């Protein structure tokens, strides 16, 4: 287990390094920075030059990268060019918010897909089973963008839902009911993925001999399902969970922008719009790191669930 964690940490550091090099390298090829977006008629050539030199934008790229890396290694992601604040202080709260909405979305998707999946797996070909097939197809082919737009319009036109409406102000708390609408939208594509996986996994587990033995022993049905079938079925489910974390982060970019949940996704978009490279770099690295941490957690969970994997 320790070997796994160490190797993943090393790998994660390598990936983050590669991403940062890539973005810095692309900058040399494309040129332009937040200053060229400033476009303020009052700012003379000289002022802009001065601002550039304050932020060190006039130095050679290698030197800038070295400086940035040295600071990033100490946990300082630099200073945002546009929002005039340390990058980490800008990222901290949105990161928590996105973590919150992702967690709620995962919980919703899991609970619904477990309930439906188990019911469907017990009776292949039944009404619930066929309903599940339809849900899987629809949930995985409905674009999150369209759902988010629809939800937004619903929230605006229904007085009842507007209580939990979009959080437009930056001081929306992390623990707020407003997380629910974006989380529901985020959970839809996940539901398609999880439900398909749950149904197959449980169905396969129910065909195993130990389930027949448990039934023969006279174990009640709920115990057969929860104790004997769910545990072996959980393996592939955890794998899917790990793989879907990246998708959740990607999905949150669109959903947060549309529904006005001020999380990491919204921050990414605003950084892209203003070409605030330090902020963008910080957001990208933090998002990647968060997803990789989630993946590691999923792998550890996998080993806790399946003792046979622990010594590999």
């Amino acid at each position: 287990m320790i070997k796994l964690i160490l190797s993943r940490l090393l790998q994660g550091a390598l990936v983050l390094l590669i991403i940062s090099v890539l973005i810095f390298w692309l900058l040399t090829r494309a040129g332009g920075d937040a200053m060229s977006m400033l476009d303020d008629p009052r700012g003379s050539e000289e002022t802009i030059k001065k601002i550039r030199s304050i932020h060190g934008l006039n130095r050679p790229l290698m030197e800038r990268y070295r400086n940035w890396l040295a600071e990033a290694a100490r946990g300082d992601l630099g200073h945002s060019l546009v929002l005039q604040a340390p990058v980490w202080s800008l990222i901290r709260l949105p990161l928590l918010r996105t973590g919150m909405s992702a967690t709620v979305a995962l919980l919703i998707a899991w609970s619904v897909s477990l309930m439906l999946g188990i019911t469907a797996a017990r009776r292949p070909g039944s009404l619930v089973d066929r309903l599940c097939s339809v849900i899987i197809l629809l949930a995985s082919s409905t674009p999150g963008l369209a759902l988010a737009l629809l939800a937004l319009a619903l929230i605006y036109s229904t007085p009842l839902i507007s209580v939990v409406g979009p959080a437009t102000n930056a001081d929306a708390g992390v623990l707020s009911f407003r997380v629910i609408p974006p989380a529901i939208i985020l959970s839809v594509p996940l539901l398609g993925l999880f439900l398909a996986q749950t149904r197959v996994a449980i169905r396969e587990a129910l065909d195993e001999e130990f389930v027949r033995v448990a039934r023969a022993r006279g174990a009640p049905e709920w115990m057969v399902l929860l104790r004997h079938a769910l545990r072996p079925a959980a393996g592939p489910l955890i794998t899917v969970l790990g793989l879907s974390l990246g998708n959740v982060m990607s999905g949150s970019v669109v959903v947060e922008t549309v529904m006005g949940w001020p999380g990491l996704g919204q921050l990414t978009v605003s950084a892209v719009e203003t070409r605030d490279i330090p902020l963008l770099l910080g957001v990208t690295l933090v998002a990647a790191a968060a997803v990789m941490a989630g993946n590691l957690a999923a792998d550890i969970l996998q080993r806790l669930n399946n003792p046979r994997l622990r010594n590999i």
Partner: protein
Amino acid sequence: MESENRYRATPGESQSANRKPQFAIRNRLRGRGALLTGAGLLMFFCLIAVLADLLAPYDYSSLSRREPLAPPTTIRFRDAQGQWHARPFIYARRLIDPATQSYEEITDRAYPLELFARGYSYEFLWLFPTDLHLFGTRVEAGDEAPRIYLLGADRFGRDRLSRLLMGSRYSLLIGPIGALLASALGVLIGVAAGYMGGWTDAVLMRGADVMMALPTLVLILAVRATFPPGLPPADAIKLMLIIFVMLGWAEMARLARGLTSELRRREYVVAAVSLGCSPARLIVRHILPGAALPLAARALLILPAFLLAETALSFLGVGLQEPEASWGSLLTAVDGKLFKRGHALAELSPALAIMLFVLGARLLGDGLGKEGREREKIQGFEYIEESKDEKKKEA
């Protein structure tokens, strides 16, 4: 259990199938409804994209100041005096309240509709210059007929239907071509990894694992941001394709690698090796044909991701720029007042188009995957698709 299948003479075809030759086609189609529906949907969209100019009544970028945010035009057969007409017609409309965008029909004069009406000039199938469009209002000399908006008009009075039709060209160009190129790169990497094995395999597949886990859209945005925001459409398309291919190869690579290392152990491949077959020939003649169906199926299943990425980029304003239209950029007009304006379905039509296209790709992909499994069963092999626990074994 699988080994019993291996020796069965001709499995696959169901007993109920009628074996008479005149039922051959029906038998082939049996149980392939999903596959056919998917293929039909995709073909429908391709046709629309190719014929967009003919189907669109107006130029997608031409503005009309008279009717901003107009609701869909009502096509009438019965006029204000209660008389019925064989030819459908429309009335001109007048904006009565700019704040709520409510319109009133002017019933003084009816404007008949006609098939193959004259409109803006274009080249049909990029070959024949013409100005015929599938439908439109009949224009008489020296007269200005009102425009017909089947899906309403956008903020600038541009015809939403025309924009949707022309937008399908961009969306259907970037998504599928991106998926195709990314698949090609993925297959190349995957086959190389599966064929060479050893540490090449280990490094490439670790890379693919990481790629699959990363938040792709965030990375796409980050890379996109390093380029100037307002790119001309051709450059924007090229840039998007390059970014998609660089970031999207991983899933195909994993599958191709699993298939290659599995197929390499098959007897016919071993026989080819022992006959002195070169690696290139081995891969092209013996491994790739066996892997083609599962690979094609997966390529179709990852296609939606590319289409959705393009949609998201255009929606966020860093994909195609105005006045060019794509399904994503058309959705930027939708906001919280969607239902108050009262033609929500027309406004959400790009989303509906995306949904149907993705549904088609999924149905076709699932169908092809099933086909692959059945063919494997007929040939007597266990299905070769990468097993779910492979990741476990490797870890």
